[in-house]
């Protein structure tokens, strides 16, 4: 199939950037979306042009590195699928495809489709962990954890930190990302000791990074390639408020 791509090109963090149009021919339906971009880049190199920079690594939907807004949707049109797992059979001959980077103040564009997601790391640094030094642990079976609790923790922990939630949110809010970590650790007995301070600190760091607030559109939930539920956001809201009025943290 032949496609027309409109890709955001921006030479560096301080460049203004613009959409540029590229035609790619003979795209196989078996290609992944990123392989289609690989082919475009090889063409660009052959023509002496600068290839499109985009983030990617594992190409099997788990590392969370890839991320681009494809036709107005983070990771593209297929639900619960990262850009690297999106295949060209989703598109048809003659399609025009808009490809843009994640857009958020807290995710500055470094080049083309590559953004800096260091803000996510800094949120985790303020509390997204259990403070246990190596060697402190008791036997893994010492505290039974009910299967529903363990499963719920796993549902939240499945977050790959790709930032699609931020990209999809009209307010560039990081609530789903943050709530997934808060919810993961709040579902387990190991996470209880620091539950209050964790919710408080991570929420305040989100603001400090310049993410917007949640207006409950649930675009994040719909865009999340791992299908993380917005229920975790409600839980974080509750932990935050009860910490505020409990005078803790």
């Amino acid at each position: 199939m032949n496609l027309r791509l409109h890709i955001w090109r921006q030479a560096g963090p301080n460049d203004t950037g613009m959409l540029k149009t590229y035609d790619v021919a003979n795209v196989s339906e078996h290609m992944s979306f990123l392989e289609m971009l690989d082919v475009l880049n090889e063409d660009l190199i052959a023509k002496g042009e600068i290839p499109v920079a985009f983030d990617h690594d594992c190409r099997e939907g788990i590392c969370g590195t890839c991320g681009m807004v494809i036709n107005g949707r983070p990771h593209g049109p297929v639900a619960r699928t990262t850009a690297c797992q999106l295949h060209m059979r989703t598109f048809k001959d003659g399609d025009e495809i808009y490809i843009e980077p994640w857009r958020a103040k807290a995710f500055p564009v470094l080049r083309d489709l590559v953004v800096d997601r260091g803000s996510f790391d800094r949120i985790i640094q303020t509390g997204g962990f259990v403070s246990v030094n190596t060697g402190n642990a008791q036997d893994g079976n010492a505290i039974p954890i009910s299967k529903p609790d363990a499963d719920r923790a796993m549902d939240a922990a499945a977050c790959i930190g790709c930032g699609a939630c931020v990209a999809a949110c009209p307010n560039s809010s990081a609530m789903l990302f943050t709530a997934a970590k808060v919810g993961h650790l709040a579902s387990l007995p190991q996470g209880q000791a620091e539950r209050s301070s964790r919710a408080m600190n991570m929420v305040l760091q989100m603001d400090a990074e310049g993410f917007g607030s949640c207006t409950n559109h649930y675009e994040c939930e719909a865009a999340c390639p791992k299908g993380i539920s917005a229920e975790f956001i409600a839980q974080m809201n509750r932990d935050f408020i009860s910490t505020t009025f409990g005078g803790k943290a």
Partner: protein
Amino acid sequence: MELNTGIPSGPIQQRWDKHRADLKLVNPANKRKFTVIVVGTGLAGASSAATLAELGYNVHAFTYHDSARRAHSIAAQGGINAAKNYQNDGDSVWRLFYDTVKGGDFRARESNVYRLAQVSVNIIDQCVAQGVPFAREYGGYLSNRSFGGAQVSRTFYAKGQTGQQLLLGAYQALMRQVGLGKVKLHNKQEMMDLIVVDGRARGIVTRDMVTGAVRSHMADAVILATGGYGNVFYLSTNAKACNVTATYRAHKRGALFANPCYTQIHPTCIPQSGDYQSKLTLMSESLRNDGRIWVPKNKGDQRSPDQIPESDRDYYLERKYPSFGNLSPRDIASRAAKEVCDEGRGVGPGGLGVYLDFSDSIRRLGEKAIADRYGNLFEMYERITGENPYKVPMRIYPAVHYTMGGLWVDYNLMSNVPGLFVLGEANFSDHGANRLGASALMQGLADGYFVIPYTIGGYFAQGGLAGVSSDSSEAQAAVKEAEQKISTLLSIGGKRSPTSFHRELGKIMWDKCGMARNEAGLKEALTRIPELREEFWQNLVVPGSGAELNQSLELGLRVADFLEFAELMCYDALQRNESCGGHFREEYQTEDGEAKRNDDDYCYVAAWEHTGVGKTPTLHKESLSFENVQLATRSYK
């Protein structure tokens, strides 16, 4: 060169305890006077960086990713082994040790493997305490599954995302230390070289992947936890950025590279669909529990699989290995698939594929039961191939998955360059010639959480570390060399992209040094690789400049190292005149085509010394002694 393994004496069960008691300690107040560089933030890197910071050392952690959470450890699906014996099924430290040595086809170091089995139990405890959501039974206790190469159920798992969850546990521990100011995290920094001062590893050279700045970082010790080199084959199940640069640069600075020819080929991957293919995707080995593997009996049979009657099908694994059948170990299943495809009986585009057929199981158990077991895998398969595996048999083909070889290390995980420690897949130490499933995660975390924190202290306590700075001539020379290399690469101005060279190199390696190797092929590779390298330096084109985010340049630098490293692999494969584990030499097989080991002549670790690009490397041998496990031939008939 004398290879001093530093293995403690005494009964194997007591060696690690004895060694820990013998190691000198660093006073808690003095730990903050030592700085450690950790390169890589996968399981081994993140766990060691976090643990060393907890102990009080100053740590600088480096990753080429934008976040420390993205290393390829994250993609491990199956699980992590530990000798907990929670199932009461006869597991023990000894049995895990035994299985690992045997699974490694008797080419691993016994003492290291025993220690690995010992600390495996602590890993699970530590991870649970960190909040890793391992699967649980209804009673609230940890759940286990069985895995290849073992007769007990000792694999802990978190859905199909065990690697992800363990990595996030280590990442969170690391982030905590970053928040506390004990670890300085350097994102988007690629290691370009190792700095050796007075014979000791004292720093690294990095390139900032956003600004392009090349600079040195100095320390008292350097830890490399930079993963494996499977991407030398271009197509592998590794992440795209995985590369050999860090370990290969260290090798060029004097560190010995051990057993580079040991590569693991995973039998159940989704086959290549075209020339544009950028990587291969693994399908969990567990599929072989209910799927039957077959190809048409006749060459060139173009019928669709449902049109091929039973009588025209060859269930070759069931035929050749009646007792293990479709559950034969990874190396055996992979080679058998290659064999039938070489005979021209492969299926799918290019004839590189075999069927993994679930129709019998669906008929026997119902579609729902199969969906319960493998639903997410079937979904993933359909997403990639567009075929519905409930209706059409899956097509699978082996792919490079893991590399057992790596930098040579002693019992302390220190290379022959003092102060250079190597952890995880980047070292060679624990898996011999073949790694068992669910053991990679175990090794990465054992090294990082429970081995290096002790052994690095022993190194520091020995003293003799003078002050060092970025102004030292060695550091400045290394920076200059790296800058020089970058500008050379940018100025070639040829016609071919780094990817095209990488792809061509991968093809040579896969054909000549892949699942099966022979002397003629390896020799051919040893002439073709230098030619290709020559062309690379004449005809490469890297657009853009060095002072910006430039992914072509990153790739070019990595491919340049692969082009030198590939030769080393072939030398190693050529000298090892036997077949063992992941290394199958066609000349050395039994009459019925099984691997034939040669314990009399090759029961050693091949540790290679760099002598110059394009020059034959020097082989050093560390002989392996098996005092606790009897050398025996593996049989799966």
